[in-house]
């Protein structure tokens, strides 16, 4: 007869009388849902801030209490944390990371754009059924496999055809270019697929050929989105550790050619972190390198958001 969960009018007047009167079902559901979502989001936010705070607190301590100057770390050329006196010059690593990431993006960008053009403009059916799964397959291959293939195939190839050791920035860039190709291609494909059809048709109506349309109209229009894809690719390449470490040589110096041993921020961290004792200056200096990596990631995200804002215009 009297079903307390039924009507809205019962909850105010007869609150105390019925069991679920004060909190009827719909208000309870509301609260439960809200609590669940807020707690998940809260956990996420706390995790992100904890990670940033942890890296920052460990990474800033060489500068604040360890006696290492910012200028020495950013511009110094010698990295000898176990030497007497210990030196913490990280410029070779910054150079290596930046050079490999930018070169990888330079190599991958034309391929990515051409693949995207092929998949959307020239052969959409073949593109969607053959090329797209192939590129997504590239994205799924683990990075250690890339490193091993790089060491077994790319390095001997470069050694035979170019002067030098084969190992170095060129090998690292080639391996990274293949790794970031899926990222660049996917974003380029999305950008090209969402172009208004009227744009292309208008161009054909004016008498332009297909290639002229692609070259003079589509490319400039989608340029901000393409740049977004490229910056995301650079960001991924910057953070790649294992594949690069196997083919880049890891000598802590700035190389004199593309085919000489170099080092990146990520590879020096993986090589040395296991060996240091937690809390020592060497360990904290490695955390400073990790902090630099984190700040570079923030920078890339910032650039991407600026580009996206421009693309939406």
């Amino acid at each position, binding site marked *: 007869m009297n079903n307390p969960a039924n009507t809205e009018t019962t909850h105010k007047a007869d609150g105390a009388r019925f069991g679920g009167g004060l909190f009827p079902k719909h208000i309870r559901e509301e609260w439960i849902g809200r609590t*669940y979502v807020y707690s998940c989001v809260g956990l996420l936010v706390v995790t992100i801030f904890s990670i940033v705070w942890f890296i920052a607190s460990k990474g800033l301590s060489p500068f604040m209490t360890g006696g290492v100057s910012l200028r020495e770390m950013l511009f110094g050329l010698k990295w000898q944390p176990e030497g007497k006196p210990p030196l913490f010059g990280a410029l070779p690593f910054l150079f290596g990371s930046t050079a490999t990431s930018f070169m990888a993006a330079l190599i991958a960008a034309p391929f990515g754009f051409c693949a995207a053009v092929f998949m959307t403009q020239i052969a959409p059916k073949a593109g969607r059924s053959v090329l797209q799964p192939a590129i997504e397959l590239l994205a799924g291959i683990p990075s250690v496999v890339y490193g091993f293939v790089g060491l077994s195939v790319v390095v001997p190839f470069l050694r035979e055809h170019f002067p030098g050791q084969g190992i170095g920035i060129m090998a690292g860039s080639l391996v990274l270019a293949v790794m970031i190709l899926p990222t660049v291609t996917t974003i380029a494909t999305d950008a090209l697929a969402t172009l208004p059809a009227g744009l292309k048709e208008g161009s054909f109506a004016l008498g332009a050929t297909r290639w002229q349309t692609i070259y003079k109209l589509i490319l400039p229009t989608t340029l901000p989105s393409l740049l977004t894809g490229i910056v995301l690719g650079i960001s991924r390449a910057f953070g790649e550790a294992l594949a690069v470490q196997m083919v880049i040589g890891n*000598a802590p110096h700035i190389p004199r050619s593309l085919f000489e*041993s170099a080092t990146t921020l990520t590879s020096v961290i993986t090589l040395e972190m296991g*060996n240091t004792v937690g809390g020592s200056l060497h360990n904290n200096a490695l955390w400073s390198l990790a902090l630099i990596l984190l700040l570079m990631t923030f920078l890339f995200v910032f650039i991407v958001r600026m580009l996206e804002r421009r693309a939406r215009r």
Partner: protein
Amino acid sequence: MKKSLLLVLSLVFALTLAACGQNNNSQTPGSAASNSPSEQPASSQPASETPKALSGSILAAGSTALQPLVEQVSQKFMAISENSKIAITVQGGGSGGGLTQVQAGQADIGNSDIFAEEKFTDADADKAKELVDHQVAVVAMAAVAHPDAGVDNLTKQQLIDIFTGKTTNWKDVGGIDQQIVIVNRPASSGTRKTFERYALGAATEDLPGSIQEDSSGTVRKLVAETPGAIGYLALSYLDKSIKVLKLDDIEANADNVAAGTYPVWAYEHMYTKGEPNEIVKAFLDYMLSDEVQKTDVIELGYIPANQMKVVRDAAGNVSSK
């Protein structure tokens, strides 16, 4: 009712997964085998005379020079029926990494080519006192070169000149006209520390153009493939793909090392933090048993510790037995 039950169950499930994720790898010495809810409860029985099935897991990490031996012996150990419930994982990472991990409690056994006192010096010296040393074998390191380098012997001074960058071409030491490419290990490597201490006499810098690889296996691959490459490897890694160099005309083999004439050798240590617990002790006892010492150790290129005619202490002083 159904929805809130589902919610509660999913939270309980997530928490259980998190608890199960805490595995046995960081056991403190003295504690028995399993401490996670998903393991069979058959394990923690008091030690008795009759052999019983032990269960649990062991993580051995560190030296890549010792890694082949520990891996092969762990396979044999796990194949014994009483030990079928024990899972042994062997990792690399270099002797420095192994010592750091066992000291921090992250690994049960730290494999190392160097004494703990050599790594934990000055302020950290009391960290070395917490570790208990088990010397399971002796390993020798040899300088190796690309097969076409044209040299099969180097004097100590020539080695020093190569690794400090004074000599940059093989023709200066009697080989072909080829640029020398140094393949190093990182600073955490016991192989590198042993080679530098006993073959070169001093630590060397990483020179521009040198290559650093973090495992002996990759070093062997690079030296075999890069013309002009020179590196150093434990005897357990030598094979036909690379050329083994003699040091001052003394060949790197078991007899010369045992007699003490070939100086580049080190004890293989398996360190535990404090006294080992039951299953780690069982593994270490098996490692030191005759069955392993007379077959696997020799088969893989190491030297049994009791065959050595000289002993060396942590400070490097050699004396005859």
